[in-house]
């Protein structure tokens, strides 16, 4: 009989929520998807409007309510994930981001122009790591752990060098912005 097939909903509430989310994606995927669904599982008569009302009231209304509760719980848990495991958005229009990019550029240029740094055995690797970090920051999102792994050793190494002038100022600024924007703390500096 039309519309009388049964859905194999999970008994687990969270899985059932996921199944309904899959149904929503299906219903959103094409204009007449609700007709296919209604004719198979939830027949409400030949009028399209009645089918939509039935889906809205019997499936979607409780789903939207329960899904918001799920998001609320999850949002709090995800927020509590350690900073180092997070992927965060890079706001390329923010003042801090501009200052961070400018600071890193200043440091990279200063490194390239410093004969004393060039003589150090760690120079090549440090320069490459700094360059890689700048490349990471060009993306729309960045993994905090990756950024920290690249920048912390370089900044610590630079901290041990006798640097002055614009590069020293840039290092301080970069460390401050990394802490403020990404929660990255550079220890021992």
């Amino acid at each position, binding site marked *: 009989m039309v519309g009388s097939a049964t*859905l194999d909903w*999970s008994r687990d509430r*969270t*899985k059932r*929520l*996921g*199944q309904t*989310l*899959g*149904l*929503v*994606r*299906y*219903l*959103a*995927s*094409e*204009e*007449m*998807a*609700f007709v*296919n*669904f209604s004719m198979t599982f939830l027949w409400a008569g030949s009028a*399209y*409007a009645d*089918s*939509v009302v039935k889906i*809205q*009231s019997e499936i*979607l*209304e409780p789903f*939207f309510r329960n899904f*918001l509760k*799920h*998001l*609320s719980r*999850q*949002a*709090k848990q*995800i*927020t509590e994930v350690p900073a180092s495991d997070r*992927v*965060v*958005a890079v706001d390329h229009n923010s003042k801090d981001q501009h200052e961070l990019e400018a600071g890193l550029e200043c440091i990279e240029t200063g490194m390239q122009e410093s004969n004393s740094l060039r003589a150090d055995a760690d120079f090549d690797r440090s320069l490459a790591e700094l360059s890689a970090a700048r490349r990471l920051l060009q993306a729309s*999102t960045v993994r905090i752990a990756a950024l920290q792994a690249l920048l912390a050793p370089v900044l610590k190494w630079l901290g041990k060098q006798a640097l002055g002038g614009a590069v020293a100022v840039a290092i301080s600024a970069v460390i401050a912005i990394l802490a403020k924007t990404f929660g990255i703390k550079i220890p021992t500096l």
Partner: protein
Amino acid sequence: MDDAAFEAFTEEYRDRVSDALRTGYKNFSSRLSDWLDLIDQSEVLATAARTLEEGFDFDA
């Protein structure tokens, strides 16, 4: 996501739910798409949505 950001999201969420539950069949799929777009706009909430299992194959 802090409480203020989630509160703002909740307000927008309720508006889009209202749109999806009150629309007729002609705009039904696009209203649901709008609702899904809202979830996907937030990295945190999109991740939360992905944690759910999506089990049905409607073409099967």
